[in-house]
């Protein structure tokens, strides 16, 4: 065996373990005698692994695995390292406000009043809708509920949206259109019962490592695994069939598969007739989608497409799972609908091992999209345009239904309103748009141009650097609440310690802002428990019904899947077992899917396809994980994956610096020359800001239904450059590099290693604390 380590230039010095909150070693003592174990779940992805936080003298000092039904004690490197953010030295411990010299320390009174003055002034001059809220789906559900209510009742704006707009909205739109409810129908553990499973656009081993177990259960039983991904992931490596298609062409493959299933008489006609609507139109729409036609578009062999269709269509029990790969495209929602069409046509829904599942990405990816921080939604997954829903929620809130504003715009539609000066203020909590939104240069311009940009966060993100006011909020272990994981299991997050310094619970911050806006009467919460009791009533009778879930039940019974309408209801781990769907007639909908090419096709100037994604060491925009010792060691910087044949043609060798250019911008990154990617495609992980950002390259094109950005499809070109690629900037910290000059892009030549204090050309100013 030749053991060849991949050589990648690593930056000089990464965080010492102890500087990231690690505790000194105590030989032979796993646990301190005085320590307490606090049962909770991870702060990161949609798996929501159970874990214990080790707490001693008011500090979180470590992690102890915890056996929960869905993780069985297992953790990924992010989960193992999550506790290190709590006592991290980079934490925001006091409010910051911007003056001529940049961000400086302020009191809570001054900072809150700045936000309230800004809101009042903007709304007086430009109307209530000129101020928007932008939330996050890593917040516990109680915080998202308060944020949605804050937007509607304290600000009176219709412009509320959240960062699930980049994550779950395509799947959500498809779920609504097909099933009438937005929830993954089958738990991922159903894979253990499946005969065939198709996974599309989901790098499960890196993005949901804990779920990999269920794929092994499928394979150990002799099941067939089919993976659709432009890259050979470690899951694709063990698949019976790996369809490495061109990014953005998934719909063509799915339409051809349905064509083959119909042509080979594999349709479950009994199920289709009894439980669905619209099959004939869909069947007609795929009549000319032959495998040959799709093969040409996808860059696959027609025989492989047929084989995938036959294996799926002939299986007694088959499942489809997908994640962001097929969702972050202009075809995002339609791709998901095409997957559901396949399941409905073959009767694969509502049975163990037969069904469909979208793997949600964020920690509260499911719960964060249910209770009102979304532009078109009220609590309980109710439509803000439905008079009955408005009346119910208005009664719970104690207001007139007319006081609740109407439907707002998805955040990426709001960007055009910012461009036009119609939205002038944004309250941003728990999200880092500079790294996560497409087209970083545009993001910087729009956020810098706001009259008021206020940020609530636990670390000073690249976006918070541009803010007028930064309010230090609470990390996940500093307040309690619930999250709903990828399987819609509602899990209890428990408080382990108090927020550091002057940082406050996010719920307190929102309530205090409401009070200062003269709307405190609607926000009387002492904490998350009060919010949850109101949320239960607000969601009662809605699709996402939490009425029967209590903190006490979650503590004693463990996670419970919604809908759960009464306290004696066991929850709903698997949906549609009675084949009744959430439409008045109880039938599922087939949706006709028209194919549309990727957002940007390669041409002579930009001949390669760029697709972006994640790496196992980092979570979302990296505002947390880029500060944690081991995770920085594991993935200190992004890279560009290039196929050997493409690299050879361009004179690029493994480890060379490569300039990646698109019509939006450029980044210089080290090349990782690997045969595990299509020759016409390159891949960059997106967790970093410029000068090494993937999102300087991505395109501002969106799915017309879900408004998800087309992160997976852009055109680019590569060229080799001499010398080392620039290092990532160190994640921002208060007191360093928070000057006004940060409001323009960081110079690409800044050689600051990620975890040492940058030798900044501008002297650090602002607070010295």
């Amino acid at each position, binding site marked *: 065996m030749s053991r060849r380590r991949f050589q990648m230039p690593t930056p000089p010095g990464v965080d010492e373990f102890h500087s990231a909150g690690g505790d000194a070693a105590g030989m032979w003592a796993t646990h301190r005698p005085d320590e307490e174990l606090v049962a909770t779940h991870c702060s990161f992805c949609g798996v929501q692994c159970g874990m214990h936080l080790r707490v001693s003298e008011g500090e979180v000092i470590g992690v102890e695995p915890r056996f929960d039904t869905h993780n069985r004690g297992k953790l990924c490197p992010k989960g193992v390292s999550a506790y290190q953010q709590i006592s991290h030295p980079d934490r925001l411990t006091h409010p910051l406000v911007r003056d001529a010299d940049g961000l400086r320390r302020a009191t809570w009174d001054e900072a809150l009043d700045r936000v309230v003055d800004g809101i009042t002034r903007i709304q007086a001059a430009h109307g209530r809708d000129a101020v928007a809220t932008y939330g996050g789906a890593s917040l516990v559900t109680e915080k998202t509920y308060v944020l949605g209510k804050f937007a509607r009742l304290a600000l009176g704006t219709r412009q509320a949206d959240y960062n699930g707009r980049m994550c779950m909205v395509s799947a959500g739109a498809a779920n609504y259109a097909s099933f009438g409810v937005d929830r993954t129908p089958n738990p991922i553990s159903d894979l253990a019962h499946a005969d065939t499973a198709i996974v599309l656009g989901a790098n499960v081993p890196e993005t949901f490592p804990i779920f*990999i177990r269920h794929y092994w259960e499928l394979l150990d039983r002799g099941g067939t695994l089919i993976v659709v991904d432009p890259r050979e992931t470690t899951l694709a490596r063990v698949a019976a069939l790996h369809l490495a298609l061109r990014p953005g062409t998934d719909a063509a493959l799915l339409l051809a598969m349905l064509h083959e299933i119909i042509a080979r008489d594999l349709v479950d006609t009994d199920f289709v007739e009894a439980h669905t609507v619209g099959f004939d139109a869909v069947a007609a729409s795929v009549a000319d989608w032959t495998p040959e036609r799709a093969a040409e578009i996808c860059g696959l062999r027609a025989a492989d497409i047929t084989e995938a269709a036959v294996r799926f269509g002939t299986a007694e029990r088959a499942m489809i799972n997908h994640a962001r790969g097929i969702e972050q495209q202009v075809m995002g929602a339609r791709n998901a609908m095409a997957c559901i069409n396949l399941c409905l046509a073959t009767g694969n829904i509502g049975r163990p091992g037969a069904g469909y599942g979208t793997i949600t990405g964020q920690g509260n990816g499911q719960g964060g999209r249910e209770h009102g921080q979304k532009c078109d939604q009220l609590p309980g997954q109710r439509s803000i345009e439905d008079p009955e829903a408005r009346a119910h929620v208005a009664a719970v809130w104690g207001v007139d239904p007319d006081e609740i504003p109407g439907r707002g715009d998805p955040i990426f539609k709001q960007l055009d309103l910012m461009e036009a000066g119609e939205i002038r203020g944004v309250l941003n909590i728990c999200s880092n748009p500079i790294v996560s939104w497409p087209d970083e240069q545009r993001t910087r311009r729009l956020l810098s141009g706001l009259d008021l940009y206020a940020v609530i966060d636990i670390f000073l993100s690249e976006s918070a650097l541009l803010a007028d006011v930064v309010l230090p909020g609470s990390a996940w272990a500093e307040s309690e609440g619930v999250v709903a994981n990828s399987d819609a299991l509602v899990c209890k997050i428990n408080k382990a310690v108090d927020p550091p310094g002057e940082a406050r619970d996010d719920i307190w911050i929102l309530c205090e802002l409401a009070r200062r806006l003269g709307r405190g009467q609607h926000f009387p919460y002492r904490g998350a428990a009060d919010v949850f009791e109101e949320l239960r009533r607000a969601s009662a009778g809605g699709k996402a019904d939490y009425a029967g879930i209590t903190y006490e039940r979650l503590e004693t019974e463990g996670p419970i899947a919604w809908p759960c309408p009464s306290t004696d209801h066991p929850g709903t781990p698997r949906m549609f077992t009675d084949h009744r769907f959430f439409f008045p007639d109880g039938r599922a909908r087939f949706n006709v899917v028209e194919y549309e090419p990727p957002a940007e096709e390669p041409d002579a100037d930009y001949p390669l396809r760029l697709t972006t994604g994640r790496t196992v060491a980092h979570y979302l925009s990296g505002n947390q994980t880029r500060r944690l010792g081991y995770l920085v060691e*594991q993935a200190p910087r992004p890279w560009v994956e290039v196929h050997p044949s493409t690299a050879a043609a361009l004179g690029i060798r493994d480890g060379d610096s490569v300039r990646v250019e698109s019509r939006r911008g450029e980044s210089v990154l080290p090349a990782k020359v690997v045969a595990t990617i299509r020759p016409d495609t390159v891949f960059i992980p997106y967790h970093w800001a410029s000068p090494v950002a993937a999102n300087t390259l991505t395109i501002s094109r969106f799915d017309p239904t879900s408004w998800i950005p087309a992160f997976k499809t852009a055109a680019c070109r590569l060229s080799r450059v001499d010398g080392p690629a620039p290092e990532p900037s160190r994640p921002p910290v208060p007191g360093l590099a928070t000057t006004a000059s940060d409001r323009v892009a960081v110079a690409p030549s800044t050689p600051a290693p990620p975890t040492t204090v940058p030798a900044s050309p501008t002297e650090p100013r602002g607070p010295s604390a």
Partner: protein
Amino acid sequence: MSYERSIFVDPSRCIACGACVAACRECDDHRGKSMMNLDFIDRAATTAALPTVCMHCEDPFAPCAEVCPVDAILRTEDGVVQSPDPSRCIGCTNCVNACPWGVPKFDPVEQLAYKCNLCYDRTAVGLAPMCATVCPSDALFYGTAAEVAAARPSRAVIDVFSFGDQELQTGNQYVVPAELAGSVLPLISPP
């Protein structure tokens, strides 16, 4: 194998996530230092990866302990080859060089060697080691051969390896394709 449960390494399952490396750093005996190795076999060609954990060699008696001039590495009766005793270790790195698996690590600042002690504080009280507890993929599994056989019917376990002419029987084991049952797995071919 002199202890009831051991670690079973199944390279075919490794997803290279690094959870084992991260978890090993959390061990109270060596916090901040990982005793795990995680390698891509040939990243240019494949995503296949291999976690390397101390195999707690049994026959011949642990090479790391055999070459230690000050007997700092002890093997307890339960078969666990312990980490060098810091009060004895002279930092000679013999163990680092002798181990056929490349497991012991030398800390040049402390001038001390470290190696996996199978999370003795955990395994001694019935818990699994950190690496095998967290491994999302069960590429590292802590349990009995019977449990592995029941869960993975198409696989076999082996605990004898060859390095050239030298055979080595270990406490921890490898999960391999069934056709390799009962064989000696050659890790370095004879010259």
